[in-house]
């Protein structure tokens, strides 16, 4: 919009300043009244995830691609020592994470950050704690290439896969006419990961209209969650996947204002990103303790207490973080609400891995 000045505009300015005051008040109250906290209310439907996550044009999920991806995901033989699979750190029995504060990699190497859950990463527009991978295809080979993680010997791995009749057949069905290479491996794993979805939690069912899906306390917790003057959680843990796909320094002690792990800053050298990490989803959050990228919070109440304090270290703190004024009841309500975000999944079945 190109704008030019004139006297009329200057006169209008004075009148508008008065009008703006009135508008701001109206806008604020409109926002407060925008949400109606009743099961199934139209004002809340923006919290529902799309039924199917997006996928790249050249990798439409098919049954063959998903089945191959599942085998590769659970196959430790892709790692250099033949003993670490994707599922070692992204274990479906532990919420597709590992239950550790920070991961363990090649020959037990202690990794710097928590293993993020695979759950609903299909809906993310950017991957990894520091956003260095753009999508699941881009991410899938990363741990194999990392010397401290799977530390894959790619010549050895390609020999293994290309000489294995079961895998040769599976690749030919999934990606006919394409080679067994990093690209097709990544595409297959990504296709499988896109099936790891949480979208049928008590919260989802309540949003769809099932009044009994959440308790009164959980509904109160939802209000605290979205209220800008209470939890103010929604500004980062945004609908519908409880993440803004954004980066924030939340004032963790280990980050130390950015003097510790630089996080996103290592990839985008902008001051506000020192010590900033991607907002994780809260879906299935009860399955993925401990919390934060450094695994420093053991419970959801510890997480809430961290935000009530407004972070431990204030240096280079995200401006969106400020101390919260919550009663003990409101804190407990908030935790109860987060407990309503977990889907009661069917047990994961394990694939048969081709021996030859």
């Amino acid at each position, binding site marked *: *919009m*190109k*704008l*030019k*000045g*004139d006297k009329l*505009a*200057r006169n*209008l*300015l004075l*009148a*508008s*300043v008065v*009008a*703006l005051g*009135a*508008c701001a008040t109206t806008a604020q109250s409109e*926002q407060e009244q925008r949400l109606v906290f009743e099961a199934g209310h139209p004002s809340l439907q923006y919290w529902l995830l799309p039924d199917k996550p997006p996928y790249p044009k050249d990798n439409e999920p098919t049954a063959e691609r998903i089945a191959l991806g599942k085998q590769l995901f659970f196959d430790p033989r892709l790692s250099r020592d033949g003993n670490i699979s994707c599922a070692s750190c992204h274990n479906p029995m532990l919420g597709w994470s590992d239950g550790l504060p920070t991961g363990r990699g090649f020959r037990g190497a202690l990794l710097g950050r928590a293993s993020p859950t695979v759950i609903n990463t299909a809906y993310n*527009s*950017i991957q990894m704690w520091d*956003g260095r991978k753009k999508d699941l295809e881009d991410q899938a080979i990363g741990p194999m290439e990392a010397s401290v993680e799977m530390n894959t010997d790619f010549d050895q791995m390609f020999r293994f896969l290309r000489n294995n009749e079961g895998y040769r057949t599976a690749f030919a069905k999934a990606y006919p006419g394409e080679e067994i290479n990093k690209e097709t491996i990544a595409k297959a794993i990504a296709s499988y990961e896109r099936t790891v979805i949480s979208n049928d939690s008590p919260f989802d069912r309540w949003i769809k209209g099932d009044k009994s899906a959440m308790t009164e306390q959980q509904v109160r917790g939802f209000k605290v969650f979205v209220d*800008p003057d209470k939890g103010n959680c929604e*500004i*980062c843990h945004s609908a519908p996947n409880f993440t*803004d*796909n*954004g*980066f*924030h320094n939340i004032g963790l002690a280990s980050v130390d204002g950015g003097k510790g792990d630089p996080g*996103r800053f290592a990839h*985008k*050298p*902008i*001051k*506000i*990103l020192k010590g*900033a990490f991607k907002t994780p989803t809260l879906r299935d959050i009860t399955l993925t303790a401990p919390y934060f990228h450094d695994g420093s919070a053991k419970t959801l109440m510890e997480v809430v207490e961290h935000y009530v304090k407004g972070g431990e270290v204030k240096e280079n703190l*995200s*401006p*969106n973080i400020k101390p919260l004024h919550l009663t003990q009841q409101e804190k407990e309500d908030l935790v109860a609400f987060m407990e309503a975000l977990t889907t009661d999944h069917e047990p994961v079945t394990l694939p048969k891995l081709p021996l030859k």
Partner: protein
Amino acid sequence: MTFDKIVFGIALVALLAAGAANAAEYEVVQKNKAFSPKELNIKVGDTVKFTNEDNFFHNVFSLSDLKTFDLGSYPKGEFKSVTFDKAGKVEVECAIHPSMLMIINVQ
């Protein structure tokens, strides 16, 4: 946006533009986690003000070869301006929300 707000916006930018004889001033807003407009054609010497209209903080930066700047982060209702003094293409982003991206073509 209400009529009053539009008038206010026009008047405010007009005032700011009054000082520069030939250079124009443009406004880009950050609203619903997106820049608007997403592409802008301006001339060398023109200024662009970036206004945050979301209820949370945004950042504005560019690491383009042509123009590097970091306006920091600011809340709803606040703005900062940048004058573009060389011709070329500048990519402007929000560091906090990486899906926010716009292009300024300086002619």
